């Protein structure tokens, strides 16, 4: 697990090969094989994990893709909430910062 460093330019990724993901109607259950922890993701955190797992994204590039994935507008889902969700996933070791540019 890792947390930080990050900035607006930090690119993030997620290695879902280390997880067992089980989507259900309203949540996705993620068993993290490394830590042995089980995480229950709501639709926003699940979508965030999915987008970051596809490739390196920073906050700015990930945000519109996540909105598209959850079919919500920025009015409903502010950028600050997406950012906080990424950091929350980072704290749990589900996503990691790849590169931080000055």
């Amino acid at each position, binding site marked *: *697990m890792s947390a930080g460093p990050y900035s607006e330019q930090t690119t993030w990724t997620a290695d879902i090969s280390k997880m067992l993901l089980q989507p259900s109607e309203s949540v996705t259950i993620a068993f993290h094989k490394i830590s042995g922890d089980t995480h229950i993701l709501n639709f926003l955190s699940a979508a965030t994990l999915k987008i970051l797992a596809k490739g390196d994204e920073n906050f700015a590039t990930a945000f519109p893709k996540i909105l598209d994935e959850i079919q919500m507008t920025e009015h409903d889902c502010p950028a600050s909430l997406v950012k906080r969700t990424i950091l929350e996933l980072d*704290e749990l070791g589900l996503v990691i910062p790849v590169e931080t540019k000055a």
Partner: protein
Amino acid sequence: MTDKNKKTDLFLEQRRDLLKLGAAGMPMVLTLRASAQEAVISQLRCTITIPSKFKILVDDTGAAWVGSGKLRTDKKTGNLKDKDVKNFKHDASYIFPHDSVSASYRPDACEYETCDESGGSGDHDDLLSHLTDENGTYAMNDYLAGSGEDDGHDHSCDDDGHAQDSHGHSIITNAPCGYAVYEYSRSQIISPGDYVTQGGDWNLSGDDGLYLELSLKYIDENGVNGHWPGVSCVISILNYMGH
């Protein structure tokens, strides 16, 4: 409106309600620990991965510089090379002012012989202390008899006001002194939760403890909006601790 449209509207409305809760601070992830016997304190379990090799230079005032520059030791004095120290400070990625670092991480202060403007060794500055003994009475004879600890050599001053010998070398009577260097390697993992007591306080020790000490200082100054590696992890723990 068809039933299908009603369902879609309800579905989106439920999502919007959930996002409102998220915007209000509700976590977007719920974690169940590997062992059901343990309490769920995922905030304490984060770790910090050091992104690249760096050093922390600490002086005796508790100031600190964080960077990746060279810090070589002068073989003659056993101290860090002045030029390296100057360059390291100049190029430091992060600088912390005096009293940022606790005493246990600070080096001993250097005991330079001080210089006066006339180029002497500066012992005259201590004249009054030599004139007064432990009983508060004057002891001029002791001073004149040589207990003033003047070695009889004529010293000059360098640019920093430090005494120099006849070869121009700084005189350091307590070498090595002045700076302490702590090194951190790339991919080194720090587990802040290991330094949280059951009472919910920090109990910092070792090199990792210094890193966390500076992390807390950094958060005091910059909050969550910073580039300091691991800031989100430390803030997560601070939130757990109720700070």
